[in-house]
């Protein structure tokens, strides 16, 4: 903690840091608590499925602007390097807020972003969907397989994703992608979203 600021919490100082840590803790417990959840809620699972499948279709089609529009203003996309990670103590591949997500979409459109020019062509298979009730929406876990084709080669990565979807239109507030192969070394993973 920063000395001096501790006794005067408020916006812009220690209170602001606490808010960051609270969001990080929320992410870590969403990830860390996933395996302890009971069986899913069938109705919510049915509600979550088309949202998850639609997202996968948008990403595979390269419709990144449409994809960006489906996030809340306090959005976080997190790719930890392991399922035991915490965003405040462990390196991640990425942890994007809404502003960074917008930059990332711009980057995907930038011809000199050589890591994605030519762009990866991806095929996602999303399955094993489960969902549970959460404040103002639902939390869903699903497994995925992504096949990436680029520069005449392909690589396939499997993993699972956790979505926190909120509001009547089930916008993405949180998405966590867990890709075990990141722990062994993958080639240019910049197609992962």
């Amino acid at each position, binding site marked *: 903690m920063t*000395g001096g*600021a501790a006794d005067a919490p408020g916006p812009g100082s220690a209170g602001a*840091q606490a808010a960051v840590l609270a969001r990080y803790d929320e992410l870590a417990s969403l990830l860390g608590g996933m395996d302890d959840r009971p069986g899913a809620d069938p109705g919510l699972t049915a509600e979550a499925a088309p949202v998850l499948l639609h997202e996968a279709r948008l990403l595979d089609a390269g419709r990144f602007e449409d994809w960006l529009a489906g996030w809340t203003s306090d959005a976080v996309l997190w790719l930890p390097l392991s399922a035991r990670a915490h965003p405040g103590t462990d390196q991640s591949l990425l942890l994007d807020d809404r*502003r960074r997500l917008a930059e990332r979409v711009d980057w995907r459109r930038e011809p000199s972003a050589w890591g994605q020019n030519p762009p990866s062509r991806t095929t996602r298979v999303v399955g094993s969907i489960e969902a549970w009730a959460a404040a103002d929406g639902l939390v869903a876990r699903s497994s995925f397989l992504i096949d990436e084709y680029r520069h005449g080669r392909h690589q396939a990565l499997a993993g699972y994703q956790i979505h926190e979807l909120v509001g009547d239109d089930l916008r993405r507030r949180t998405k966590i992608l867990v890709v075990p192969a990141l722990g062994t070394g993958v080639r240019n993973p910049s197609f992962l979203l």
Partner: protein
Amino acid sequence: MTAIDSGTVPPDFDYLVQPHRVHRRIYTDPQIFDLEMTRVFAASWCYVGHESEIPAPGDYRTTTLGLRPVLMTRGRDGAVNVLLNRCTHRGTVLAGESSGCAKRFVCPYHGWTFAPDGQLVAIPFPADHAVEDRSTLSLGRLTTATYRGFVFATLNAEPEPLDCWLGEAREAFDTIVDRHPGGDIAVMGSPHLLEFLGNWKLSWDNAADGLHATFAHESYNTLGEMVDTETVLARDPGSTPMVSKALRNGHMVVDQRPGIPQGPWATMRRVPFREPLESALVDAGEESLLDLATGSMINLSLFPNLLFVGNQLLVIEPVAVDRTRLQLWLTSAPGAPSEIDLLRLRVDEDFVNFGTPDDLDMFERVQRGLSIPEMEWIDMSRGLPDSDAADGDATIYGPITSEAPQRRYLAHYAKLMTTPAATRAL
């Protein structure tokens, strides 16, 4: 196809590595790669890990030295050991996890048991086993030395002392460590691992390449324009006062500090969660510490396997002649306010996500280009002739567009390959 390309001609490194050009074969020939695993990676000091990763007796971490699986352990006496991760019975790799804490290493195959310092302490059913002297069956032990907590090891039979081997590189090394409060730098666990389909030396050709940022990283620089940040890479490489240095033993330095008088933090764009953490430091009157959240703006490369980039350590692991793994370790500043490490986590994602993919793509493109047998040479002549520094040390200075660092490390490489140092059998 020329004879030199066939792989049947013993490599002549005076021919393959010339002052102004380099032959493609050193990047494509599996026979040369095999020689490198001994003549470079066994004969040089190599970075293994940092003491902060193994604070308690029994803590260990695995890595490779060349292709050899090795273990860095902390013994019961508190000393750091670097051992071959190979059972002396029939060769089984002992520790399968990348890190952990073990009082003893028990081989999963037949139960031979080793202490963290490598001594064989137990053999099951010893009655019918004729071993007289167990001490001859200790784990293979590498010569180990540390500098500022960084652990290096070698199989060289008569290694130059680590301090001498580092030589002039110690100045940049000390600067990087000493900017941490109390000189206290630590390495976080769980590296980020990336692979590329290219030779390991491609990352060396890139490490002190001040010219490529303008082109290969153009998108990193324009991404910064979205929020009016002039990233450090956006400077004109032809007229910047930044300087590159080619040091003895293949080490290299690019000092970007002269090109950013307003300090590193001013070059950092709005990474996620920046503002609340930044304002907490500003409100506490510790604004001057913000530069600690970015790198030192000195790229230090210690041949053959350690690069300091930003606040990360990049460890270069050769996998095959055309395949390389990069370990990216994040350093922390235990003596600084907690906001610094929280910022570092997000700051180092910036380049890894929007810069590193460019480099990975260039490495793979170069490797594919070098597959053409009829085009034999890589041009490395930019900035020739090289001139030694006026003060007569062994350092060559140049503008960051000079390829002097590449020439110098490759000359060192050629020397290692031509006159192999004796390495120890274990």
